[in-house]
Each structure stands twice: as C-alpha cells, then as structure tokens.
C-alpha cells in the first residue's frame, strides 16, 4: 500500500453549454503570448467531431498512450523511442492544430479613400504574411452531423453503418460538448516518454508539470500524451502543458477554468489512491479499465485508510479535504463519472458524467411535441450507447448503461417531486435498478444542481509554508516551474 493524494476533477457534460468561457479564462492567464497562440490548455470540442488537434483520438496515427502488453508506450520501447529522436514520425504538426492568425486591423483606418470598403486581411501570427485561413480554434464548433467533421470522428468511424445512419439521420442530429484539459494522469504517457526526465508528478497533489529548465525540446511528450495536452512551444523550443493553475490552488483558489465555468459543470477535489497498483490497473483489458481505475481509489472515511494515509505522511488537512471531495462522491459513491478513453491506459484523473441526450421531441402531425418518455428512457437515447462506451468505458456498454440508469433514477425522482405525474412504484423501481437510495439520489441532485462553489470545488490546503524549508526559494527547491521560467519564455541564444 502506497497511499497518495491526487487533485482530481469531474466535468458534468449535461451541464456544459459550450460557451468556451473556460478556454478564454485559461488563455488570458497562461497562453496569451507569442508562440503559445495555438495552445489551448483548456479546449471545448463538439462531439461527435474530429476535435483538437484533428482526430487526436486516433492513436494509430499519433501513437499516444500505452500498449496493453508489457507496459510499453505506443510510441515505442525505451530504445525505440530514443531512436526516433532525430525525427519523431508520430508528431502532430502545426496544421493538425491550426496556424494562428490575426487581421490587419490598421488597414481599416489607414487605407486611402477609395470606392471600396477597406478590409482587414488575415495575416499569419507565425510568418506575419497574409494567409488563407483554413482552420482555427473551434473550427468545427457545433458542426456535428457535418460529413467533414463528425463523420471523421475516430469513435464514429468504428460504428456500424446502421448506427452511423441512426446518428446522422437529420431529425436525430445530435451533439454535445466535451471540455478537455490535462487529466493529470496517474500513469502519464507524457512523463514516461520524456527522454530528459523533465516531466514529473508533484507528490503532494499529483499535478503533472514540465520542468522548463530540464526540457530539451525532444518533443516526445507531445506524441506520447494520448489526449494531446502537451504542446510544443515553437518559439521557445520547450513543451508546455496545463499546470492545473497550481499557483492559484496554492493560494486556495480554484483553477481559472473551474472558477469561470458558466455552466458550473466543474468539480474539483482530492482523491486518495494506492500508487502501488497503478501498473496492475493499466494491464487490464479495455473493458475492465474504468472499473479497475475506480477500484484503486480509496475510501477517505475508512479509519484504516486514514491511518495508512497518516503514516504515509498525508497531512490531516488534506485528509479532511478528501472527505469533502465532490469528486469522490461522483466517481466512487454514486459511480456516475467515468474517465475519458480509459483504453489509453494513462489512468486519467479527470472524470466525466456522460450526457443524457434524451429523446427530446418527436413529430406529431407536423408539430413538434415533447416525447412522452422525456428523460426517462435509455433505449431511445439518441447517441448509440456504443459510441459513448467508446468514449468513456473502453467499449464497455454495461458501464455506461449503469451510469445512465442512475442519472435516469435522479431525473424520475425529481420529476415526481416537482411535477408529480409519475407513478411512485415506477420511481422506486428506477432507483432500485440504479442501486441508489433516495438519500443518495437527493444528494446527487443537490450536488448537480444546487451547490455553490465552495462545495463544488474543494481545493486542499497545499501547505507550502510547511512543505518548504524556511528561507529556501520554492522554485529552486522544486527545480524549476511548470511553464515559462523566472525569465521571459522566449529564445535568447
């Protein structure tokens, strides 16, 4: 037993309205500078869709994550990976993201008088030259159902013809938003792939950072992260990634994307887990991965776990935070949150409550009418369960169905409370099917719909004042920080 604490998150996809406030909050704070324009440490993509970078989920192309056998990176064994150092065949290039651009706004006011309206031409932020814009941030926003984007979604391509047709039949067209940040994985591909050993997990809170002074620009992490959440700084020759706003967390604040989330879909809290079992979990079959990962998360209320955690040096305040963690509730107690693509085997510590996407309406003699079984049927879900299972459960449909049974039970109970038109026996049956008690359903409803920021986001005390020797520069102690440096992040030599 090797107990560690991990700051983890849950994103509730039914609540995401796709407003991109989170992306902008992050961009303004961390990546609003030369060379980082194309980086979206937080991005929100439309699903089904190809995502950012294009088709990032296709590991045959990008070689991210781990092979199941032998715990070897998809990118290659240690020697094989070093052999690719002069040229990395799996590296996405700028066009897989997009070329950042701006407009020559100055032309609008400086153009000489003439017969035509002056225009602001787009110019590349790389070369400064005029360019034709062919892609941009969120280029496929809301374009699900298009035969360019959704039809090329690696998850959709795997479905049968019939299922694909069902998804794209025009009246059934369906989409949801998938906000993504670094998952601060337990078995991180980025960490494992770094030839310099520059990427590390912080022991106390599990935040994954790239030591900027150690990074040599070998750019292996960009490939090895299956979520494409490390980004190569093409001006600095250093890779960067989401730092989970650790400077904010160390001041007791929520990460910027969490704090600014308009839909209040984001939950943050500590999970305790057994680090000795990471590798064992990663060796499971695809379909068992979600359950296996849930299994190494420990119960912070169990006195034995508490005693072990104390002996492992986890401070009392962190244990307290673990007991208040909404993530523990979503992932373990209610089991309604699943990891994204567990089959990449990095053990991502960001979990998603999958979207319900219910039958909303049907046509009745030319008029749209709310469906009878609004919110209550699983079988008529508009996205094939198989597609969702491909996203959140390594293809295990049972795993996803179990989650939906719980979400449906919550909705039925709420409907019977607020509208009162459901048969009590039916509501009870749904709860029983879901395996949730009435109290649990109430708590799940409360946490989903009513809680304030202090309950949704429980930042553990980072205890820096205790952790660092008095008088020592914390950056020095930690050998460098997560991005940039004490010097400006640009090329000097």
């Amino acid at each position: 037993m090797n107990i560690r604490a991990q700051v983890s998150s849950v994103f509730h996809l039914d609540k995401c309205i796709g407003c991109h406030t989170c992306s902008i909050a992050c961009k303004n704070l961390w990546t609003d500078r030369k060379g980082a324009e194309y980086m979206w440490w937080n991005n929100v993509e439309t699903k089904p869709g190809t995502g950012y970078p294009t088709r990032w989920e296709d590991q045959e192309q990008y070689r991210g994550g781990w092979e199941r056998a032998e715990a070897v990176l998809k990118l290659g064994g240690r020697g094989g990976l070093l052999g690719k150092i002069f040229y990395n065949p799996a590296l996405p290039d700028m066009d897989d993201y997009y070329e950042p651009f701006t407009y020559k706004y100055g032309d609008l006011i400086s153009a000489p008088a003439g017969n035509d309206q002056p225009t602001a031409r787009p110019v590349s932020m790389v070369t400064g030259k005029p360019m034709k814009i062919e892609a941009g941030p969120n280029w496929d926003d809301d374009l699900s159902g298009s035969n360019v984007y959704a039809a090329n979604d690696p998850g959709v391509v795997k479905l049968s013809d019939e299922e694909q047709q069902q998804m794209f039949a025009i009246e059934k067209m369906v989409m949801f938003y998938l906000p993504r940040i670094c998952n601060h994985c337990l078995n991180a591909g980025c960490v494992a792939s770094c030839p310099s050993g520059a990427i590390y997990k912080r022991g106390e809170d599990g935040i994954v950072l790239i030591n900027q002074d150690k990074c040599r620009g070998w750019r292996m992490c960009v490939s090895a992260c299956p979520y494409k959440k490390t980004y190569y700084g093409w001006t600095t020759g250093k890779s960067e990634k989401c730092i989970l706003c650790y400077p904010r967390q160390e001041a007791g604040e929520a990460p910027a994307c969490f704090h600014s989330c308009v839909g209040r879909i984001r939950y943050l809290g500590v999970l305790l887990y057994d680090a000795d079992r990471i590798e064992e979990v990663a060796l499971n079959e695809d379909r068992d991965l979600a359950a296996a990962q849930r299994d190494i998360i420990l119960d912070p209320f169990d006195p034995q776990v508490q005693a072990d955690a104390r002996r492992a040096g986890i401070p009392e305040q962190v244990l307290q935070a673990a007991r208040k963690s909404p993530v523990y509730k979503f992932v373990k107690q209610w089991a309604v949150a699943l990891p994204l693509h567990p089959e990449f085997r990095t053990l991502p510590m960001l979990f998603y409550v999958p979207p319900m996407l219910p039958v909303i309406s049907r046509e009745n003699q030319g008029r749209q009418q709310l469906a009878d079984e609004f919110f209550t049927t699983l079988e008529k879900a508009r996205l094939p369960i198989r597609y969702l299972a491909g996203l959140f459960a390594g293809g295990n449909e049972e795993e996803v169905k179990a989650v939906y049974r719980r979400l449906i039970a919550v909705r039925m109970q709420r409907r019977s409370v607020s509208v009162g038109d459901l048969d009590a026996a039916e509501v009870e049956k749904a709860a029983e099917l879901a395996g949730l008690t009435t109290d649990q359903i109430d708590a799940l409803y409360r946490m989903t719909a009513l809680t304030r920021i202090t309950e949704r986001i429980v930042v553990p005390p980072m205890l820096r004042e205790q952790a660092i020797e008095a008088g020592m520069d914390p950056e020095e102690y930690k050998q460098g920080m997560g991005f940039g440096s004490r010097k400006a992040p640009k090329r000097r030599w």
Partner: protein
Amino acid sequence: MMDLILFGIFPYVAVALAVAVGIYRYTIDRYSWSSQSSQFLEKKALFWGSVPWHYAILLILLAHFLAFLVPGAWDALLEAPLRLLLLEATGMALGICTLLALLLLIVRRAGNARLCAVTTRADWLLLILLLLQVATGVIIATTLRWGGLWYAHTISPWLWSLLTLRPDIQYLAVMPAVVKLHAFNGFLLLAIFPFSRLVHVVSVPFTYLSRPYQVVVWYRRRARLG
C-alpha cells in the same frame, strides 16, 4: 605566425569558450538549453535531412575521435587493405550523406516562411559553418585519399600535442590549405557551440534507458510504507 595563432593558440581559446560559456549558459539560463526542434513547423523535408544528417555525422565524429584517441589501435585496424578500403568507402558515403542532408536542411529553412520566422542569425551561422566543415571534409576525402591512414600520423599527434599542452603546429603547417581550413573550422565550431543550438549535443538523454517511467517529485522527503 598565422599558423601558430590558428593551430597553436586558437584551439585553446575555442575550448576555453566552449567550457566557460557553456557552464555560464547552463547555470544562468538553462531555460535556453534546447534542441530547438522545428519539426512542429515542417516535417516532410526534416525527415530526409535530420535523420541521415545525424546518423552520418555521429559516425564520422566517432571515427575522428577514435583515430585521435587510440591511433595505435586504429592503425592496426587498417593494416589489412580490405578493411582500409571498406573504411574509406564508408567514410566517403557518410561524408556525402552529411553534405546532401545538410544542404537539404539549409534549403528547407531558407524556403519555408514558417521556418525562416524561427531561425536566428546564430542558426544560419551554425548551418553555414557546418556546411563548410562537411564540404571541406568531402573534398579532403576525394583529393587526399587514404585519410584513414594519414590522419593517425598527422592530425592525431597534433591534437595530442594540444592536449598535453605542448602544441606542435609543425604537423599542420605542412598540410594543404583545405586541411588547415577543415581543422580551423572544426575549432571554430567548438567555439560557437555554447552560443548556438549545438548545445543539444551534450544533452544526449542516455539516462532515459534506465530511469523509472514515472517521476514523482516531493516537496519534502516522506515516509514510505513497506
């Protein structure tokens, strides 16, 4: 006099610069220590440039170092005419390989607007000096045959004389101009190494082969349970 400056004094200046500036840069501005990969901006031509360039230049450098460090063993190795021929042919092939690959890398940079935007003056200088170096190397190999043999008896003792702090420039003074240029430019490259992206050469990440996959850094040491 010129020979003394170029081959008796400048090598020490170059080494001193490489070491002093190298250490200075590593301690003061480690953030700048990077391969400055440009694959993100262009990858098709990079493959045909970078891969042959690196494998060939590393093997050629290896041969230069071996013949310098262990001239006796080197001589013994080349006693058999067949082995000499084989080495000569391999060396020539690798030399041409570096030349073509480097030309491709230069054309790649010059012809691509994105790459031009990230290329500094130091990058251009480095590429030009490297081009000069491999070009003179190939010329030497074609015009002054059997370098595998004469290197061990001329260049190697000169380098040893430098190493033992009793510089003997006689070995170089009698050499044709192209060899002098190659030798001087070699040390010039050493001199600009700490100022350029060439610093990546001393960061070869061999430790990757033996380190654990997952790296965890603690603020403070903590008790591990058995």
